[in-house]
């Protein structure tokens, strides 16, 4: 059967199980859009291509499926770059289709031409320029395969218009032979044995886990392992939800804005078992003093992440699930039991740190505290919402005060730190889970970076809730300027902001506002119950800071609890 490019496109996507595309049309992809129209292929029209990429990302992070977006050549393609780089840094499986000018005009600075494979080479796991119609189906299959296998990531496929307009004999793509074979990521038995020996001998062991647990669907195995060994757990920003945030062994997030007790545990542990994290500088603080009393076991699917920032005593290249399964089994066979006395001493010590600096120690006054907004949101949603965040203080407060019990429920740009990520990501998550409560916790700065997607949310009746922690500042920038630049607030005052309630209404959404502490709970309750897109504008204490904080370049042992300790 002879098929044209767009027909092969939709056929292959269906075979890959794609349920929805996030996109924005343009000249180079009109043929594909025509096919989408004819077939009524599920598609969400965003208002900016960055929104399409983040929405596909949010869809992928919340559902575990590959997110797909489709945009036109040139500016359409370049507009996705921030979204692609965001997904790349956080290992999110995504396939991005970009239109391209016709093959003969590639390289001639044709209208709306951009060398998008060149531009995205450093921020994609792989990318393709399709040169022949015969290669189309296979390339799409390979793109999906690469995006989801191993350490996942975004893959871009560039589609020249003339190639898409041509036709070829279509072969069922399950008969296509891919150029790749499924790699195995099983742990080396000897190294695993050595790791277990260390675990058995450790007096003050600690688990530090990252996004790899969630991507590798290893949360149950992690819980089993932690409970068997009674080892306390801390997780990086990307790992929030990998371990229940209400579990007695849970320590919260470590690092620059980590909890005091997670940071103290890192400084004092004698063994650190690290799984699926790349040791970001935001986690380690000064690396030379990081976990300096501990032996380090590092399990990761990506060999390049091991020994990159922190040297491991036992490096294990493996996916999180296989490694944890094998360790759990081994411990069962050995009838492993912890040394109760040592374990109690260690957990008591941690309890002492917790009591010394609990998260709830922020002061409340007559202004709304951002922390309180999130705590109330947690209470009202019973911790069962999908939370997306923007970047800045709003992100850190969300990470600290919304206690994530489930994987795939915290969507945040950890690696790239992209303002403007949260709202479109929330749209993507709401598309994946129409019946769940999906909330974007935003700053007044970040929300303005992709505010146009309000039209998308309203258009598709997606009841996303936006909680703006409105402090009239680029808050996190202001905090750094306060602490490290003697309060010279250079270009961080954004109090000239739109009336978010009116703005919501202008887009056809619902706008609510709270300016006093006693309005927080009623406003949230009301907003959560409205089955529409809702913008909730909370006017919070303007100069509230995120604490604890470790000054950049210093060691985790110097975790400060309030600003007076920092200057």
């Amino acid at each position, binding site marked *: 059967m002879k098929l044209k490019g767009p027909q092969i496109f939709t056929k292959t996507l269906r075979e890959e199980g794609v349920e929805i595309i996030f996109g924005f049309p343009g000249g180079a992809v009109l043929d594909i859009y025509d096919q989408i129209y004819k077939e009524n292929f599920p598609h969400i029209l965003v208002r900016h291509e960055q929104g399409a990429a983040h929405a596909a990302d949010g869809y992928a992070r919340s559902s575990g499926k590959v997110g797909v977006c489709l945009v036109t050549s040139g500016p359409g393609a370049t507009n996705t770059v921030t979204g692609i780089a965001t997904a790349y840094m956080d290992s999110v499986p995504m396939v991005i289709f970009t239109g391209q000018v016709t093959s003969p005009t590639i390289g001639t600075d044709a209208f709306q031409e951009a060398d998008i494979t060149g531009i995205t*080479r450093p921020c994609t796991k*792989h990318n393709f320029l399709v040169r022949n119609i015969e290669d189309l189906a296979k390339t799409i299959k390979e793109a999906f395969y690469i995006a989801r296998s191993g*350490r996942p990531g975004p893959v871009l496929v560039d589609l020249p218009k003339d190639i898409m307009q041509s036709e070829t004999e279509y072969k069922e793509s399950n008969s296509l032979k891919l150029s790749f074979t499924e790699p195995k990521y099983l742990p080396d038995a000897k190294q695993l044995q050595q790791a277990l020996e260390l675990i058995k001998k450790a007096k003050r062991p600690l688990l530090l886990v990252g996004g790899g647990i969630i991507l590798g669907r290893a949360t149950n195995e992690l819980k089993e392992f932690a409970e068997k060994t009674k080892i306390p757990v801390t997780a990086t920003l990307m790992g929030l939800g990998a371990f229940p945030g209400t579990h007695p062994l849970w320590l919260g997030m470590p690092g620059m804005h980590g909890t005091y007790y997670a940071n103290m545990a890192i400084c004092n542990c004698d063994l650190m078992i690290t799984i699926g994290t790349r040791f970001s500088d935001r986690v380690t603080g000064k690396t030379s003093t990081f976990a300096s009393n501990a032996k380090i076991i590092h399990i990761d699917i*990506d060999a*390049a992440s091991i020994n*990159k920032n922190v040297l491991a005593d036992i490096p294990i290249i493996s996916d999180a699930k296989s490694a944890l399964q094998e360790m759990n089994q081994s411990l069962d066979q050995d009838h492993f039991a912890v040394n109760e006395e040592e374990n109690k001493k260690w957990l008591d010590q941690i309890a002492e740190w917790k009591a010394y600096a609990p998260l709830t120690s922020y002061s409340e006054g007559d202004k709304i505290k951002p922390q309180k907004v999130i705590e109330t949101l947690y209470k009202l949603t019973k911790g069962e919402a999908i939370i997306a965040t923007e970047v800045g203080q709003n992100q850190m407060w969300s990470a600290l005060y919304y206690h994530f019990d489930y994987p795939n429920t915290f969507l945040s740009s950890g690696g790239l730190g992209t303002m403007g990520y949260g709202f479109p990501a929330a749209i993507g998550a709401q598309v994946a889970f129409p019946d769940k409560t999906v909330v974007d916790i935003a700053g007044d700065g970040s929300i303005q970076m992709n505010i146009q997607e309000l039209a998308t949310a309203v258009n598709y009746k997606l009841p996303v809730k936006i909680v703006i922690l409105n402090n009239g500042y680029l808050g996190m920038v202001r905090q750094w300027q306060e602490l490290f630049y003697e309060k010279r607030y250079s270009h961080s005052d954004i109090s000239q902001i739109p009336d978010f309630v009116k703005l919501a209404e202008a887009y056809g959404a619902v706008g609510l506002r709270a300016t006093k502490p006693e309005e927080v709970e009623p406003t949230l309750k009301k907003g959560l119950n409205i089955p529409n897109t809702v913008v909730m504008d909370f006017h919070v204490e303007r100069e509230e800071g995120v604490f604890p904080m470790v000054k950049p370049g210093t060691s985790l042992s110097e975790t400060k609890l309030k600003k007076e300790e920092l200057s």
Partner: protein
Amino acid sequence: MERKDQTITFLVNNKPDVLARIAGVFSARSFNIESISANITMNPEITKIIIVTRGDTATVTKIKNQTKKLVDILEVSHLKEKSSLQREMILVKVKLTNENRGKVMEIIKDYNCRLITLEANHCVLEATGNKNEVKNILKRLERLGIEDLSRSGILAL
């Protein structure tokens, strides 16, 4: 750890973009490429790329791990200086005068160079050798007047 020349060979699919991807890893991670050579292998679908970079063994491990992740890379190996063979080729255009003519011919003989062209005022010679040999040839020729020079990337087995 000691920083020195490190030779890394890559077997890759002979596809467009592969070299750019490898070079991209070097530049994105702040590693310099001192020398590079590339050509197809006995199998025309597979290209061998040989890159010399400066760094310690940890640098090499990082490069290996980062490049192994690239889709079209089939194999990455680090060639140890002692157990590998390294050669490069130079083409040198040398000024010829009545005074230096004899000396140039002497060098050609000493190092087994090939005389490619010989004209009244200059000649072009070709030489291959390891790093030291090439260095020595160039040192001696330099005194006599090098007009132009091309060096290939390092070849290694």
